[in-house]
């Protein structure tokens, strides 16, 4: 019999029962936030159902919180609808006894930053959240994916999810990346390779020496973006880095329980003879700092490259889609991508707002600053840390001072301009160098133009005033 993949092992450990060919999968951790839960709690009430495991549920306020004045709590929210949604969450978690980090609590922040930071996210777990970037938690070797609101209600009521098993897809990234190249570039390169629907129906396990070489923050960035390749979830097998990251966090086991947990976590890896339905291999050394030029995360180009034209497409549909993207983005086929002048820089989001992300951006900013360079005068640049604790850590390291001295805004945590549900949005036609995850039309504000890139690349763009090669700023 062939061995099992990491995904197979997590799956097998969580099947509670099978009904009509559908598995009922136990859920170890349910993360919730204000936007995708009100209708789920309303459904529970209408059917007089309880929350089965409030202790396995954690709530944060992140999607529509403003990034200033959070100490005031929901009073800081000017938008009436957003305020009502946040108040609804506060009432729901109180009624059902769910732990909640409200706005202004130092532990609050983006749900996919908070879960790992608190040690709630652990290897071998099943984790769901009404948010597609739940795939982030796969960095710890947990099976984690986004669900809709009806499924949120299902998990609240039953602590399970009805699932069919996905396919096993392994992406190996081997070798040593060049300086200035990291997890975000890997992720964009993978999506460029497989396409935005390339992972549909699959769980992707990331493996290879370049993946092992990534920090936990880098692995989170990589798994976070798996959904942009259409995959159900991303996974990295846990190792010493994972265990070191988790040790001593508020919700991780201590003492003898830690040893017991560790022994269990170490069973989660793909066996040598495990069979994958599909496998691709990328050479880390051949990946350049990468940005997106269009309106789908698969529209990637090396920073040294040129904007493609419709003639590069294989089908009439794709040609039409490139023409449409070029028009929306205000770009010409064949122009160097570094010609794109930037109006706004956004460093933040569940993809890239952790301490290491801020350090890598601050390093570029500091080097530039010491060479007499500041944020370009026409650029509005902002940093939105992923949580109150990330913010506090960055401040303790003096990163906020570096950013502010160079002309960045240093803001309070939340999803912010990644999806622009709060007041942080692009104006029509504005072009943004963004460390977020989606360059869809209108994502960061109607008519806004998004170029996805790493924090270091975004920092370089802020200084240069246009898309720039971070290697010129190292």
């Amino acid at each position, binding site marked *: 019999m062939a061995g099992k993949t990491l995904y197979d092992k997590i799956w097998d450990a969580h099947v*509670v029962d099978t009904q009509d060919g559908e598995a009922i999968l136990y859920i170890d951790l349910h993360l919730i936030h204000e*936007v995708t839960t009100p209708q789920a709690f309303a459904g529970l009430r209408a059917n007089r159902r309880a929350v089965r495991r409030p202790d396995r549920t954690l709530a944060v306020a992140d999607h529509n919180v403003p990034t200033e004045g959070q100490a005031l709590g929901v009073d800081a929210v000017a938008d009436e609808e957003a305020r*009502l949604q946040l108040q609804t969450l506060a009432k729901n978690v109180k009624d059902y006894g769910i732990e909640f980090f409200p706005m202004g609590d130092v532990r609050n922040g983006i749900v996919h930053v908070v879960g790992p930071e608190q040690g709630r996210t652990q290897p071998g777990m099943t984790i769901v959240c009404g948010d597609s970037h739940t795939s982030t938690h796969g960095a710890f070797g947990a099976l984690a994916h*986004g669900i809709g609101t*009806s499924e949120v209600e299902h998990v609240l009521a039953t602590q399970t999810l009805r699932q069919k098993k996905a396919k096993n897809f392994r992406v190996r990234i081997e070798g040593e990346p060049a300086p200035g190249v990291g997890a975000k570039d890997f992720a964009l390169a993978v999506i460029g390779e497989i396409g935005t629907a390339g992972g549909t129906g699959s769980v992707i396990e990331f493996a290879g020496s370049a993946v092992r070489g990534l920090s936990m923050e880098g692995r989170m960035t990589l798994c976070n973006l798996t959904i942009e390749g259409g995959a159900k979830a991303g996974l990295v097998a846990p190792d010493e880095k994972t265990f070191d990251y988790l040790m001593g966090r508020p919700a991780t086991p201590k003492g003898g329980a830690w040893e017991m947990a560790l022994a269990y976590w170490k069973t989660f890896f793909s066996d040598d003879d495990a069979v994958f339905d599909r496998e691709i291999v990328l050479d880390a050394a051949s990946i350049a700092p990468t940005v997106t030029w269009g309106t789908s995360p698969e529209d990637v180009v090396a920073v040294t490259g040129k904007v493609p034209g419709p003639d590069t497409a294989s089908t009439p549909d794709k040609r039409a889609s490139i023409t449409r993207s070029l028009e929306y983005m205000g770009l010409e086929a064949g122009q160097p991508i570094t010609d794109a002048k930037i109006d706004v820089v956004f460093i933040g989001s569940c993809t890239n707002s952790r301490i290491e992300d801020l350090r890598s951006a601050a390093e570029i900013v500091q080097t530039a600053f010491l060479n007499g360079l500041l944020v370009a005068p026409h650029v509005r640049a902002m940093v939105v840390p992923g949580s109150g604790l990330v913010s506090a850590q960055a401040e303790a390291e003096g990163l906020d001072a570096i950013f502010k001295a160079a002309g960045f805004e240093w803001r309070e945590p939340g999803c912010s301009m990644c999806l622009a549900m709060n007041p942080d949005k692009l104006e029509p036609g504005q072009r943004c160098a963004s460390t977020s995850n989606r360059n869809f*039309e*209108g994502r960061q504000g109607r008519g806004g133009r998004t170029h996805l890139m790493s924090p270091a690349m975004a920092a370089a763009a802020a200084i240069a005033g246009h898309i720039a090669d971070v290697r010129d700023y190292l």
Partner: protein
Amino acid sequence: MDAFTRLDAKVVPLPLANIDTDQIIPKQFLKTVDRSGLAEGLFYDLRFDEQGRPKPDFVLNQPAYKNAGVLVTGDNFGCGSSREHAPWALIDFGIRSVISTSFADIFYNNCFQNGLLPVVLKAHEVQQLMDEARGGNHVVSVDLEAQTVTSPSGAVFTFEIDPQRKIKMLNGLDAIGETLQAEKSIDTYEMKRALSQPWLEGA
């Protein structure tokens, strides 16, 4: 959830690939605490200009496609955000079935929770439906029982669907109620887990 058996309705073509859920229902409509009333936000940036005036050239604003119940569209429909507001908005607008060559996973799941039938057809069949839908006022039949789509000209296309999902959709079954029939298994699983992974208890 409303049951879905057979639908005879006007078909509207939207020949774009990779339509993401941000386009189906933009962020400003996600602040609601209700499931209903989202029709206004459906394809908002495609339907309305910056002053909120309907764009006359957008297909859903054309009188010939008024009250359409079936949307036929390009590859990978519903990619991106997990927002269930996307199927809610489509249903609220009157769309009960979406036909494409492929759907993103989360959106596809969300459809089945809401009685919105996603139908996967072959590329040339989708293309034929789009061609026949042109001009408006053309009716297609989507028959879930028979697993067929009948085009305005009478061409019949068959589609695959998971048998359990089909039964639930035909009967409008509540997934939570069904899962709770296995509540004893959940109890047993939790008891075993409390022994093998005690660190997860009372966290």
